[in-house]
């Protein structure tokens, strides 16, 4: 069983400890708590260089040293503290860097409230376990045989059919109920490919509806999207070797994933507010009375500095947008400001949690909005690579990884 070391403060008193343990159990892991000698706590804090007032944070630091010095055995690390505690936020961020610099353990951080439930932690825990447990599968660089990937996302559902490492069928549709949406894209992708569903040697499902669709299609691989998306991104971008950072601005949440030789080793996942997601782009397009497919080109013609916009909240973001239009701003400038606002928020919230490694690969449906790619370029100082079929990363990754289950291949 995978052992996830928990370094935390406040989980018991916030009523979330059981939820953390439930999420770990659901993915076949268990939470463990590194042993620490009482007399080593102060010396660990002194060596770390940050002396928190809260004793439980001191214990977190000592536990991190236990892991770094291999006095305690674990496979992955989960660092979690209360939302809004300044001292804990500082310790949490610095401990993550410490673990990454001093161990090879995958690590994920999370700031919780009393409302945090196991479901919110599940994807993160699943990705941690996958990194530990399926290294061999994740190292797969070529797809073999005839396989299909289905990505049941919050905004769109996608399917892709691959044969001998080539795309032979693909389709997408807006997600309504997940069964009919999946049926639509599966049918269309199979028609393009010229095969029947029964011809598929393996199927992989990912996205929010992965478990339900996994059962329906008897999938060999049912995998959270952090793993499939990163794999699909490096495969589509032909960047399987070396390092890269993948930015996936999704319909409901955002992911920033760092990979080394195609294997994810760190990630952050955000999504408290729609203001930094593809949903805000959709809302903007709707208010500007343009198709979402036209928004990027409009934004490329605009100047974001002419429109003050802060989409930390999608409602306030749209308010800014309406006010700017009323004051006579052009729709090009407003579109550019909306893209810039989303890019800025991704930078401030997601990319601070990981060490950005070049090249940056931007994927997901939002990567087709050229204005958003330009805004990311301005924010990061480097032009992200947008691979062909960048909206199909999940489906591509699921099809690629599922071929790893074909015997002898």
């Amino acid at each position, binding site marked *: 069983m995978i052992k996830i070391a928990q370094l935390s403060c406040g989980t018991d008193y916030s009523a979330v400890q059981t939820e953390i343990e439930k999420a770990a159990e659901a993915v076949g892991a268990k939470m463990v708590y590194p042993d620490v000698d009482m007399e080593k706590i102060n010396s660990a804090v002194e060596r770390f260089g940050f002396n928190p007032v809260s004793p439980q944070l001191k214990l977190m630091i000592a536990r991190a040293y236990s892991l770094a010095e291999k006095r305690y055995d674990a496979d992955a690390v989960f660092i979690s503290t209360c939302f809004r505690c*300044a001292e804990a936020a500082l310790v949490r961020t*610095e401990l993550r860097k410490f673990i990454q610099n001093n161990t090879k353990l995958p690590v994920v951080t999370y700031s919780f409230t009393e409302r945090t439930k196991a479901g919110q932690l599940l994807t993160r825990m699943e990705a941690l376990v996958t990194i530990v447990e399926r290294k061999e599968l994740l190292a797969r660089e070529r797809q073999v045989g005839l396989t299909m990937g289905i990505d049941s996302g919050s905004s769109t559902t996608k399917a892709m059919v691959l044969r001998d490492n080539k795309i032979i069928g693909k389709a997408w549709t807006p997600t309504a109920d997940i069964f009919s949406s999946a049926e639509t894209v599966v049918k269309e992708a199979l028609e393009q490919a010229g095969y029947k569903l029964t011809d598929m040697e393996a199927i992989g499902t990912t996205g929010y509806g992965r478990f339900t669709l996994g059962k329906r299609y008897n999938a060999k691989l049912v995998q959270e999207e952090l793993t499939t998306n990163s794999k699909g991104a490096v495969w589509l971008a032909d960047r399987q070797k070396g390092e890269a950072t993948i930015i996936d601005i999704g319909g409901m949440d955002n992911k920033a994933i760092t990979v080394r030789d195609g294997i994810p080793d760190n990630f952050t996942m955000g999504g408290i507010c729609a203001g930094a997601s593809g949903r805000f782009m959709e809302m903007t397009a709707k208010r500007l009375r343009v198709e979402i497919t036209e928004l990027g080109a409009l934004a490329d013609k605009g100047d974001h500095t002419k429109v003050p916009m802060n989409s930390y909240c999608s409602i306030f973001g749209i308010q800014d947008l309406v006010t700017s239009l009323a004051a006579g701003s052009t729709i090009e400038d407003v579109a550019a400001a909306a893209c810039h606002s989303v890019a800025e928020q991704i930078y401030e919230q997601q990319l601070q949690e990981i060490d950005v490694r070049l090249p940056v690969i931007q994927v997901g449906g939002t990567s087709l909005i050229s204005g958003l790619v330009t805004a990311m370029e301005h924010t990061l100082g480097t032009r992200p690579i947008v691979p062909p079929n960048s909206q199909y990363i999940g489906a591509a990754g699921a099809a690629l990884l599922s071929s790893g289950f074909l015997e002898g291949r």
Partner: protein
Amino acid sequence: MKVLIVPPNSLILFDLVERFGHEPLSVMAALQERIENREIESPPMNITVDVVKKGLKYAAIEIPSGIRGRLAIYGPLIDAAEAAVIMEDAPFMFGCVGCARTNEMMKLLIHKRKIPVIKLDYPNNEDEAKAMVAKLKAFLEGLKK
């Protein structure tokens, strides 16, 4: 050498570092530049939203804005420092940054730089003060070798 003083606005530490032949890195110069050389955008210290964003280099978005704003000013001083003098447990009248969390974070950032550091206990009487100055003098002179 460029020697950072902590608290970064301590006039006494500034004077001692300068007196013993080094360039003190203090917040006074950093803030003076902000006050005198810029248009007034965000008085009194012209810390604008963009300045606070620069603090993201040192502390993540979830960390309160006051800490990020302070680190946007103090962080570059830490980056530039070749050595540091830290006065522990000094009363706020000796110099302070007004935020205990920022104080700790500054110490961590200095620690991570792996530069020569001397930690001094705040003196409570004349003898302790003389001993503190002697210790600091020895450290600062040692840096020249």
